[in-house]
């Protein structure tokens, strides 16, 4: 009997000690963020808050990171007027309603108190919103990521590194590299010299004709496949250049690529109407649209920082450029 009592007492004390012991502190490490802050962050964060949809939330969803909250935007005609997570909504149909991700305000003015209420252990902030860094950092370790830095893959790796998701990143990167390798192999087999194919990425927005050297997945995949750009784009120091409509000829090439918005009032037909308004007769003047070689890509999907976006754009280029007969551009 005495033995039984002693055993019960020991077991009870043991269980109490285990139950009452404070949760083991998370293992931490020092991370130097995009603005040079040395931040002590958990090695494996469990409650991540993202303050940018297509740049942070989309890749975090893709990697399966434990994200508890994100900013969102209310866009007319999308998701019945409820806030959407840009990029994650279009790529993965991730919404605040069908996931455990809480809405903590809009991209440009998140609700810091709503973030605090979720007790996060890591907050990812884009550099343009870092003016509020001191307020976020009193709530949780806060890491600033430069969202316009290139190459995009390095940016993605930084996000994966900060959130302890490097394994998932490597797995996704390997898959994309495999598909890219297959695509390059096919190009070689078809006897195509990618360098000989000139592809211009250009859009008309209002009164502007704009050409791009860097525009997320749209240009990243073109570079990955080894296609050439028009000279005027190649010589660019920045990411983009506004051209006069009179310089239209300088972007002529085998293919023309533009992005259209999946949202209301700015779809493919509006995109063509924009070109018509600024440069009447553009589709007869430029080689690519004249020969039905103008490729349109959905913007929100293409802009999301993700390997899924790269793969989708890769598939579009493969079917529109590599695997079909086209009329080559001659100077």
């Amino acid at each position, binding site marked *: 009997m005495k033995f039984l009592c002693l055993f019960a007492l020991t077991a009870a004390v043991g269980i109490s000690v285990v139950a009452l012991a404070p949760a083991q502190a998370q293992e931490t490490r020092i991370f130097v963020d995009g*603005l040079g802050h040395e931040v002590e962050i958990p090695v494996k964060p469990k409650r991540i808050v993202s303050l940018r949809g297509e740049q942070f939330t989309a890749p975090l969803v893709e990697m399966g990171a434990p994200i508890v909250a994100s900013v969102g935007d*209310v866009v007319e005609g999308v998701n019945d007027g409820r*806030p959407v997570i840009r990029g994650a909504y279009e790529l993965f149909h991730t919404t605040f309603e069908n996931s455990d991700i809480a*809405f*903590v*305000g*809009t*991209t*440009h*003015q*998140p*609700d*810091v*108190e*709503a973030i*605090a*209420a979720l*007790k996060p252990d890591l907050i990812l902030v884009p550099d*343009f919103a*870092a*003016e*509020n860094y*001191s*307020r976020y950092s*009193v*709530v949780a370790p806060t890491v600033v990521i430069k969202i*316009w830095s290139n190459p995009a893959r390095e940016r993605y790796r930084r996000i994966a590194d900060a959130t302890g998701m490097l394994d998932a990143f490597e797995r996704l990167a390997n898959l994309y590299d495999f598909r890219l390798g297959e695509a390059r192999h096919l190009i070689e087999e078809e006897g195509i010299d990618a360098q000989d194919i000139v592809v211009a990425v250009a859009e008309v927005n*209002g009164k*502007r004709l704009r050409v791009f050297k860097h525009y997320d997945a749209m240009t990243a995949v073109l570079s990955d496949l080894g296609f050439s750009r028009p000279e005027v784009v190649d010589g660019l120091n920045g990411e*983009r250049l*506004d051209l006069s409509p009179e310089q239209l000829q300088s972007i002529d090439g085998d293919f023309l690529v533009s992005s259209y918005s999946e949202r209301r009032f700015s779809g493919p037909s509006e995109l063509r109407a924009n070109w018509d308004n600024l440069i009447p007769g553009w589709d007869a003047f430029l080689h690519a649209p004249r020969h039905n070689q103008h490729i349109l890509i959905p913007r929100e999907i293409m802009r999301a920082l993700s390997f899924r976006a790269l793969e989708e754009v890769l598939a579009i280029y493969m079917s529109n450029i590599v695997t079909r007969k086209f009329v080559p551009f001659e100077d």
Partner: protein
Amino acid sequence: MNDFSFRFFDGRISGRLHRYAPVLAVLFTILLLTLLATSAAMGSFEISLPGLWAALTSPASGQTETTVLWELRLPRFIAACLVGAMLGLSGALLQGVTRNPLADPSLVGVSQGASLAVVALIILFPTTSLFWRPLCAFGGAILASLLIQWISAGRSSAQSLRFILVGIGLAALISSVTTAALTYGQINLAMEALSWLAGSVHTASWKVCQVLIIGFLVLSPLLVWVASPLAVLRFGPEISSALGLNVRRARFTVITLSVALAALAVSVAGPIGFVGLLAPQLVHRLIPSRPGTHLFLTAFVGALIVALADLVGRTAAAPIQLPAGLVSSIIGAPIFAILLLRRVRTSLS
């Protein structure tokens, strides 16, 4: 007889006040304290009243309640009050010196100058450290107002009118350049700039409060000093000169003080509309007081407007945060329209 006199320290401190001025000061203080209590208690993060009291009286570091109260809500409330008080004072000074009840900081290019400087910084130099943003806003505000003062400078008695017309013209010109920068800038950067242009105290921290308090303390002696020249300037330049006032110097000092106050507020919170216009007008409607009392009460009303606008903005549609500038415009525009209509009716009758 609506006034009463007071004398302290054998007449070394003496003055004359409207009999309702102390009553209004007490009323505004009570309103401000009520708003403080409401701001401390309300927000997306729910704190019970006992929890709030505990966080207030014995703050424990690491506790979320303490963080939310001491690091998020209180600095934001204090910054909102200071920004509002400064904008209100700036408007009151301008209305006094120009003898125009429609004058406000945007008239002297403060808001426009600050806006152009910040928009240019965001769009042309997106990689520049955020540390430069308030400094740039302050510099832009000062430069624009100096330019307006320089162009409108003259000896004629119509200087006030000239100042107003030049102010409106140049402010419109600066605004058009800002619009062009927003139109031709990269969309992400333009959105970021637009967010700043909406006017908000959402970035307020204790450091920001420190800057505002120091600025306010530095400018306070000047506020006391300008009360008497402002009282004389109400009679117009000719009578002011006859009374021995150096009109040019007085006018320059008052405008410079007004610009400094508004520039400091705008550099922290962005342009928050209607406060500089509305706060002095509301006080004027309540009691027609002398400049000193008028400035004192206007500071209270300005603080109340921005603190209320911020509270409504951060709680009404939470977690969506409405900028204080937007809320103050929504509240201010109809009130201002009513005041204008009353004025028209009074002058017609």
